[in-house]
């Protein structure tokens, strides 16, 4: 009989980070089950941005902790790099400028030192920009970027070294409940595996895993396009967002440029759109015309997992004492992962999270009528 284990369902950044912190806390029977390969889902498809400049206290608190985590990971985990290159929101009308003055005050009051900068300062921060209709910008010098591929592969290497079992192309088919516990999981090609704890970090696929147990978790998959160019010499350091259209540009340290734009499509409609390319390029080439000369290398779709209040679900599933869920990050799962992984480990090992902010994200909050507020969900 195999020993009961701590099973993490999902080999994205959330599952990997959870395994890392559990391992640091001395847990030695961890298994990660990934239906495809490490980073296949939203993690490997994200735009690599990291920021604490949110408009809800819970998000800001978590992200400030996460940025501390990113700095620590950069120092402690071979292969992880965090580049604190900043975020720049381009504002093109009076209304936006007024709103962002308020948002800046909110950030500052929560300890995030964003500042409203004028056209001249924008030019200093991003010398290659064509200012065009930019009136001002909100600048977050504490934000940055990190490669999801480097990070997931670095964690994968480290976890294997620490004795974590990583099962790729191994799907968890269902979870079997006995009273107030998940007793075991059924693993494709393996059979039934007893579990001490189960961590559900399967992103979009968490929903179908939980449905048979009667849990209807309120997340929807919102497909977002991204595209990336070939490597070019440095064009711009911070991630630049055109606020009015939700379009953005992020040049990675390798030289490749990621372009994104709001281009709504339905949850199950995953066909790539030329319309997205046109929108993203049209918006961002207004400020960086030379991107029209870059070669497009790849284009793909990934899910933002949205909850009704645009905040993630982290905590014990109601009525279960050994099942923790962490999903629904609205496109911010990668950036939040250092703190989320730590909190998952705290939930499993100590029974509760370290931060009050995390407590507010408990899955039962919707039934309890304690929804949270967040106004900025792009980038």
């Amino acid at each position, binding site marked *: 009989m195999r020993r009961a284990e701590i099973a993490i369902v999902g080999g994205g950044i959330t599952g990997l980070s959870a395994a890392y912190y559990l391992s640091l806390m001395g847990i030695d029977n961890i298994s990660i089950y990934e239906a495809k390969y490490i980073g296949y889902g939203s993690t490997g498809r994200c735009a690599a941005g990291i920021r604490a400049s949110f408009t809800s206290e819970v998000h800001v608190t978590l992200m400030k902790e996460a940025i501390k985590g990113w700095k620590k990971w950069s120092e402690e985990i071979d292969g992880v790099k965090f580049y604190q290159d900043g975020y720049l929101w381009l504002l093109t009308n009076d209304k936006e400028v007024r709103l962002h003055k308020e948002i800046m005050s909110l950030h500052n009051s929560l300890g995030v030192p964003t500042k409203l900068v004028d056209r001249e300062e924008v030019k200093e921060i991003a010398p290659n920009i064509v200012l065009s209709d930019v009136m001002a910008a909100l600048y977050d010098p504490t934000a940055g970027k990190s490669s999801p591929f480097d990070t997931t592969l670095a964690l994968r290497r480290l976890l294997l070294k620490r004795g974590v079992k990583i099962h790729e192309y191994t799907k968890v088919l269902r979870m079997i409940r006995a009273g107030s516990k998940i007793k075991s999981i059924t693993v494709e090609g393996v059979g039934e595996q007893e579990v001490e704890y189960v961590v559900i970090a399967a992103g979009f696929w968490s929903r179908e895993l939980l449905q048979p147990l009667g849990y209807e978790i309120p997340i929807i998959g919102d497909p977002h396009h991204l595209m990336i160019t070939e*490597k070019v010499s440095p064009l711009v350091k911070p991630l630049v967002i055109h606020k009015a259209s939700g379009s953005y540009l992020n040049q990675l340290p390798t*030289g490749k440029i990621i372009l994104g734009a709001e281009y709504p499509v339905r949850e199950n409609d995953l066909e790539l759109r*030329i319309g997205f390319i*046109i929108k993203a390029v049209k918006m961002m080439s207004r400020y960086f015309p*030379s991107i029209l*000369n870059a070669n497009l290398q790849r284009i793909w779709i990934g899910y933002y997992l949205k909850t009704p209040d645009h905040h993630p679900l982290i905590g014990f599933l109601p009525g279960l004492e050994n099942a923790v869920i962490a999903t629904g990050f609205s496109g911010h799962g990668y950036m939040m992962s250092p703190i989320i992984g730590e909190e998952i480990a705290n939930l499993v090992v100590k029974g509760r999270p370290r931060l009050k902010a995390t407590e507010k994200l408990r899955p039962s909050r919707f039934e309890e009528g304690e929804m949270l507020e967040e106004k900025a969900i792009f980038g």
Partner: protein
Amino acid sequence: MLRNRRIESHPILHFQRGKEVTIFFEGTPIKAFEGESLAAALYASGIDVFRWTPKLGRPRGPFCMVGKCGSCMVEVNGVAVRSCITPVREGMNIRRLRGLPTLPKNLDRMIEKENSDNPFEEVKTDVLIVGGGPAGMAASEVLASNGMNVFLVDDQIRLGGQLIKQTHIFFGSQELFAGKRGFRIAEEYEAKLRSLKNLHILLQTTAIGVFKEGVLLLNKGKGLIIKPKYVVLSAGAFENYLLFENNDLPGVMGAGGAQTLMNLYGVLPGREVVVVGSGNVGLIITYQLLQAGAKVKAIVEAAPRIGGWFVHAAKVRRYGVPILLRHTVIAAEGKDRVRAAIISEVDERWEPVKGTEKRIECDTILLAVGLTPNTELVRQFGVKTVYVPELGGLVPVRNKYLETNIPNVFVAGDVAGVEEATTAFIEGWIAAYSILIKEKGPQSQYVKKRNEYIRMLDEYRSSPVSARVRSGLRHVEVGGS
């Protein structure tokens, strides 16, 4: 000192060069000819180093010569381009690429009609054919001459795929071009295609991807959305690399890349050459190098036996070229260009045996170590692929009429499994008649033709040489209604 690498006399080829033009390489005027690729012109003038890599500052020169690798990127008038698929033009200013390319400010790829919602032209057509080698040309001819409206696109400067650099004489039946050299077949077929008015040939055009709105083509920097009823994917294959120390040094080149230089443009790839791989490509390029006046120091083969046909091996042996079995290249030496190849014996597990290293002085190492089907677009269409080593890697699953699991998406030629020009032609015809039958119903003349070609393909593959292909096909050919 720069040296002229143009082949001035050749026993079987007469290079018809276009109008002479002058281009400038880092300020120095260089002679070039219209119709040739920039990479060929630079290489012909003795230039080895085309770029320096961003991270380690390593020198790079041409490798694949078909726009697949990026090793030959240079700056032309400030824009980084793959020089092997960029035609020369009078007065071009060329610089070596140092590090990453800088995006130019002059907007020669500016999206047109900036204010419209869709800046790309949209075109509906019956058939889109991607890849203008033998398979794509064959399918185009049948479809366009039977009343279908066809777009044939290819990212190269010229039509014909690999045929345009094949100088050997084909054998077999009349219908399969017996007695003709490959490049001649391409020329004649192209002339035939150019006379078909339903056929639109777009060269220097990349099929970027498959989208909800259609297939996005990029034609010399201009976007075009094409909505076809049927698709034939015939994008061919690309050359495999081999892992060894300094394998990126200028002078290490794909055998196909070297053939492009030598047979298409009349430029000698090197004077003293080591060829890696004794399959037909390795043997044929060796013979062609000898014809063009180069010296082949050795053919190195890791397997215990020669991979290609006996007739080809016998020919190169007669010229005294040693074929070293159970040997591999473990390193290249040189600073800005190959000076020597270090070879070594390999054991049963294909591992180099310590102490058996030998140094062969040479300026060129050609890799003839197989091809991989170019299936990016195939997979974008959602076509199921499986890994079949006998066919070169990931290959599309299809029925015997060459239709894939995605209705109306067909495959033909090397993209469906690495074989050769003759089978690619036949597959192109089969795919074309299958489309005609789907579109116009099972008319007897189409069905008859298709059956003939299926039989011809079976016959062609019945020889012992095709045993590997036959066994590979068992994994990808399904059903057939």
